[in-house]
């Protein structure tokens, strides 16, 4: 879907989040030099057209207690993947589920699901339940728990640029303070045992 220049600019603005004040859309409108109604209408369109999948508070899930995060990957015949993916997606503990392209000679897996849970023991039990329930015992698979989170932030879908952009911290050698969880410490955030 081709986005308009204004849509690109709004998406870029929203990366830092909506201002938390009485008239957030008016504030964005002022910065972009367009009327408030235009900003609101543009957001409404992005939501209606499902460009925006979810609009609301983005929580830091680790700080809310979701400390075990497993990415489970399976190498499933392509023609079976959609049916299995749909059943997998409906399991209550599965937070995300996708089919992705394999990487030749490197990564044979094509079906992915994410499980975010309180601790590894619980998540492992949920994975065992999933494998038994969907009869995936003979399917090549892997479980990749996350260890350190270096960055969690919004995707950049702003205006196309000729060159790739490094943020100022990189240029000044500063550390990464883009936290994934509560932590006053820069750089490595939310190490998990």
């Amino acid at each position, binding site marked *: *879907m081709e986005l308009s220049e204004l849509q690109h600019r709004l998406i870029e603005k*929203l*990366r830092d989040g*909506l201002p*938390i004040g*009485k*008239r957030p*859309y008016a504030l964005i409108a002022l910065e972009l030099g367009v009327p408030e109604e235009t900003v*609101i209408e543009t*957001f409404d369109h*992005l*939501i209606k057209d*499902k*460009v*925006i*999948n*979810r*609009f609301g*508070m*983005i*929580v*830091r899930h680790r*700080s*809310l207690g*979701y400390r075990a*995060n497993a*990415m489970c990957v399976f190498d499933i015949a392509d023609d079976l993947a*959609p049916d299995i993916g*749909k059943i997998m*997606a409906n399991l209550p*503990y599965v*937070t*995300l*589920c*996708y*089919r*992705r*392209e394999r990487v030749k000679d*490197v*990564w044979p897996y094509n079906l992915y699901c994410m499980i975010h849970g309180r601790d590894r023991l619980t998540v492992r039990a949920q994975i065992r339940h999933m494998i038994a329930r969907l009869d995936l015992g003979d399917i090549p698979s*892997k479980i*990749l728990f*996350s260890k350190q*989170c*270096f*960055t*969690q*932030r919004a995707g*950049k879908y*702003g205006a*196309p*640029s*000729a060159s*790739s952009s*490094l943020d100022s*911290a*990189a240029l000044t050698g500063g*550390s*990464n303070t883009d936290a994934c*969880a509560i932590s006053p410490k820069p750089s490595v955030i939310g190490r998990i045992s």
Partner: protein
Amino acid sequence: MSNNRNPKPTPDLAPDLSALQIRLIEEFQRDFPTTPRPFATIAEKIGSDEESVITAISDMKTKGYVDRVGATYATGRAGASTLAAMEIPQDQLEKIANLVSHFTEINHNYEREDKLNLWFVVTAADQASLNTTIHSIEAKTGFAVHRMPMIEHYRLDLGFALQWN
């Protein structure tokens, strides 16, 4: 709080959140109002007042429970994106991960337990910008970036519940 759909979360989840804050997290990770005064609209829906809602959300941002009020985007509808992974020797991981994180096109940059140990999402306005970024990361780090672009999704990000399943 009295809300049958949302039983009180276990105390180990964010024990210092107020009842109002818990309710805001439970109900406004999706469908945030696009009215001129959205915090007043929220207040009206849940029987609070605009000022309290603003204060409650600001406080959650300060404490690090909420990153921002913002959007997640459907892959393929807004620009281009891909999941990507790299195989980095353990003693260089932190250095390389920080180099990767400094590209503004990167989000969700994690160490995972595998030979492919650095995983992140690259987003860009279009496919050409995405390619440029990935080549820049390879040039800057000296390691290959493997791409796993999405073919289709079966479940998208719906936000997080405050109580355990």
